[in-house]
């Protein structure tokens, strides 16, 4: 029987599920003219959810339902940022959905359920919860990608996402079954304890490989990145921004739970399988940095460019993860948060500059933006330099931390690979700035910010935050470090 204590620990999740159901019902009964209410209510629901996460945060790590669900510092940081970023995405999405007549209510409910999935995933204390959270998240995402059902690109992306996603889920599940076979437990802490001194090392290693496949797919790390460009390009931009930002936090949480909590980390005496997964992740990191950056060089579609850039950013995230200690995890989490914020602004910009009948998707569409709309050109400049990792913008400090983590772990070579990748990556970000600032506007186009005022304001705050956080990132880092300190 769940105790009242268990319920209290799960309060934010329970609240969000109930709220999402209420919104679903409400949407069904509202008249078409009143549908706007769903929008504001959803944002309110998310903000209250973030408040519940912070206010109910226990002083130290607690678990509920016999260890199935963990509520600790890590889950707090990831949940707060997922909720806040999703709220931001709702603001960006409204003008986009409205102009294209994409079902309004479904978008909000599905995204809310996906967010619940994120929250379970980052709080998972057992393999079952990981899988449950992951499926809730991905199933909602498949539907979201296909939301614009009249668009063949969107349907194609959804099918690809679904088939590959199902395959990855299968791999993950298969890996989990092997781990279960070797350790006789689904609980991550028990698995961790059982791994030390087990005689089933080969079986565990096989399980680890399959689980890393699943993690790699969710992160979009090469060589499991094939779905990323098509899904990013094909999805409605309002959905892409969700997949490209908040979901990266979930992927980080999933990797942390499975690898660090479950398979053993490098800190402390009992290392578990840490040396093995560190090496595998290092390979994934190098591949992602190389493939992501090199292929991004030749992209002409902005969404596709950002998709390949995501792959390289996940490479950086893994560089921090390879460290395998609290410093490395906090660096990776900081990176995930900084990337999620930056990528939300990047896709938000695409939404704000698009309008019905004109998707501002090609890099060339941004030509001469500084002539038409200097403010948004400036914001995009901030976003691009942040992605490129040029100080004093926020994105630089994430790179600084993960490279530092690699140096600390004695992997100077990995830090150098990261450095070289940053140079390659710089080129395509600069190309976007070049198009906005140095080129004349193309004939017959008229790219302006046409989205409604809330979207423009929130986007401005989002992009300026990248500059402001570049000077005041200390509290965020302290928060991330505290999460892994205990």
């Amino acid at each position, binding site marked *: 029987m769940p105790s009242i204590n268990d319920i209290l620990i799960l309060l934010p999740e329970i609240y969000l599920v109930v709220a999402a159901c209420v919104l679903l019902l409400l949407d069904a009964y509202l008249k078409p003219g009143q549908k706007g209410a769903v929008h504001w209510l959803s944002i309110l629901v998310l903000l209250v959810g973030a408040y519940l996460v912070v206010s109910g945060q226990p002083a130290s790590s607690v678990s509920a339902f016999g260890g199935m669900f963990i509520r600790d510092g890590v889950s707090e940081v990831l949940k707060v940022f997922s909720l806040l970023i999703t709220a931001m995405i709702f603001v960006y999405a409204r003008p986009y959905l409205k102009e294209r007549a994409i079902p309004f209510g479904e978008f909000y409910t599905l995204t809310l359920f996906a967010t619940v999935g994120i929250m379970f995933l980052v709080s998972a204390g057992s393999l079952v919860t990981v899988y449950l959270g992951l499926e809730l998240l991905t199933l909602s995402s498949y539907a979201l990608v296909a939301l614009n059902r009249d668009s063949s690109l969107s349907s194609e992306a959804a099918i690809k996402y679904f088939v590959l996603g199902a395959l990855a889920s299968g791999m993950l599940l298969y890996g989990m079954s092997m781990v279960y076979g070797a350790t006789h437990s689904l609980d991550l802490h028990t698995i961790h304890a059982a791994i030390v001194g087990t005689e089933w090392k080969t079986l565990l290693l096989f399980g680890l490989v399959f689980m890393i496949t699943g993690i790699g797919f969710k992160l979009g790390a090469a060589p499991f990145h094939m779905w990323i460009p098509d899904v990013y390009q094909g999805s409605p931009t309002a959905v892409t921004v969700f997949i490209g930002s908040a979901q990266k936090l979930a992927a980080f949480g999933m990797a942390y739970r499975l690898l660090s909590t479950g398979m053993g980390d490098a800190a402390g005496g009992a290392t578990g399988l840490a040396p093995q997964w560190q090496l595998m992740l290092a390979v994934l990191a190098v591949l992602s940095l190389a493939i992501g950056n090199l292929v991004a060089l030749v992209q002409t579609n902005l969404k596709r460019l950002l998709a390949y850039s995501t792959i390289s950013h996940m490479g950086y995230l893994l560089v921090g993860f390879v460290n395998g200690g609290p410093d490395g995890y906090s660096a990776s989490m900081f990176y995930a948060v900084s990337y999620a914020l930056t990528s939300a602004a990047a896709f938000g910009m695409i939404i704000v500059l698009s309008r019905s009948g004109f998707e501002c998707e090609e890099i060339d569409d941004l030509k001469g933006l500084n002539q038409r709309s200097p403010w948004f050109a400036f914001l995009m400049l901030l976003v691009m330099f942040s992605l490129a990792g040029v100080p004093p913008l926020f994105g*630089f400090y994430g790179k600084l931390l993960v490279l530092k983590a690699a*140096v600390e772990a004695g992997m100077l070579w990995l830090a150098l690979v990261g*450095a070289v990748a940053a140079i390659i990556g710089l080129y395509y970000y600069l190309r976007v*700035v070049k198009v906005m600032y*140095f080129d004349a506007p193309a004939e017959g186009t008229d790219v302006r910010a046409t989205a409604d005022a809330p979207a423009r304001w929130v986007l401005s705050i989002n992009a300026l935050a990248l500059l402001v956080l570049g000077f005041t990132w*200390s509290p965020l880092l*302290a928060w991330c470090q505290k999460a892994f300190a205990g």
Partner: protein
Amino acid sequence: MSNHLLSLLIWLPVVGAIPVLLAGTGRPGLARWISLLVAVATFAASLALIPAYDATTGTMQLNESLSWIPSLGINYSLAVDGISVALIILTTFTQILVIVGAWEVIQNKPHQYMAAMLLLEGAMIGVFCATDAMLFYVFFEAMLIPMFIIIGIWGGPRRVYATLKFFIYTFFGSIFMLVGLLYLWHKTGGSFAISDMAAVHLTLTEQSWLFFAFLLGFAIKVPMVPVHTWLPDAHVEAPTGGSVVLAAVMLKIGGYGFIRFSLPIAPDASQHYEWLIVVLSLIAVCYIGYIALVQQDMKKLVAYSSIAHMGFVTLGIFIAFILVRETNNPDAARLGMQGAMVQMISHGFISGAMFSCIGVLYDRMHTRQIKDYGGVINVMPIFAPFYVLFAMANSGLPGTSGFVGEFMVILAAFSANPWIALFAAFTLIIGAAYTLWMVKRVLWGKVTNSHVAELKDVNGREIFMLSAFAAGVLLFGIWPEPLVHLMDASVARIVEQLAITKV
């Protein structure tokens, strides 16, 4: 107030850029006046450094320190020594002239141009003040963004190529420096303070890696052969103001980086590879001088001459190792290092002045090809003497600031090895050859081109700008004492440190 003088110097132009931007396209006049006001105020504040700084000890002074990122040991810590003070004043001085120089010339979005210049100024001053390696790096990189925009928007026909090359080249160098800094952070046990990094013991192998990491970062900035190829492109395509700032201040950051990072952190590796820098510097002085000789484009000619002159800076810095550790002649080492620093300041004035002169001609003729000119002195009698003066200074004529630094470096080089001095002294011939030949082809002779015949002489604004440069060039040529005095004690401290091995 004086406690926060350095912060004021950094943030005044940065904050000042905001009203300039807000003034907007509608009121370009207002934007110009605000930016001039900000630049003048910054210059005035930088002059306050002279009384505030005690030049007799040469220590790092006017300390400011705030904890920025406590968990990583990153501090917002600022301090200056004599060398930084001289470079900061050079920066603020140049900035006024750049804004005056762009007054009517920049018609396309002048507010953005002025704001970018002010942001650039703040970042450059930050580089000269930072005593925390990470803070230094942040300013060092932040500098690139406004310069990228300046070259890219207001530059010449191949501006996009030039500005991308500039940005990627510089970023390429500095990112390896970042990895080096992270390694040092690891070795010091969690401190980014440059003084802590200088104090930590490192093996020769570690020092060598770090030396090359720093070399990559700073050699590209200086620039040294063979990583100089971005400079001619950037200079040719940049607007006049961009070229002036690039040549007068940004190149100096490379030389400054060597004495702040390479020498104290990797002294043994610096000694070990001192021959490499000396050879590269001599190649810059001689070979690049010959390249300058054959240029058809005035800006390119001055750009190559900048590389040759910066060769003296790196030569002066690194022959100190031969003098201190091999021939045991610290006085000559001090002279050489002093010469390098004087050369940095002097080249700031001269190159800034040369690019401004070319800008004056370009604004009228819209060409920089030497062959399009000839007989300019006949139609621009006020402009011509300035041009001749700066050209003379560029070729190192005694009585101009160009002579002082080069002479000191050559003297020191002679104590180290007469052969080095011999090759370095080549510059006196080649430098004179390329500059004076350009003067001959541009100024003297008959007017053969009808466009030249229609040239109007310089106006009051341009006379002000050129006179200010001329005053600097002559002042430090005839009376370098105050400049030498300002930097002497700091240079002496650096030379003392060179003798101490860290292995």
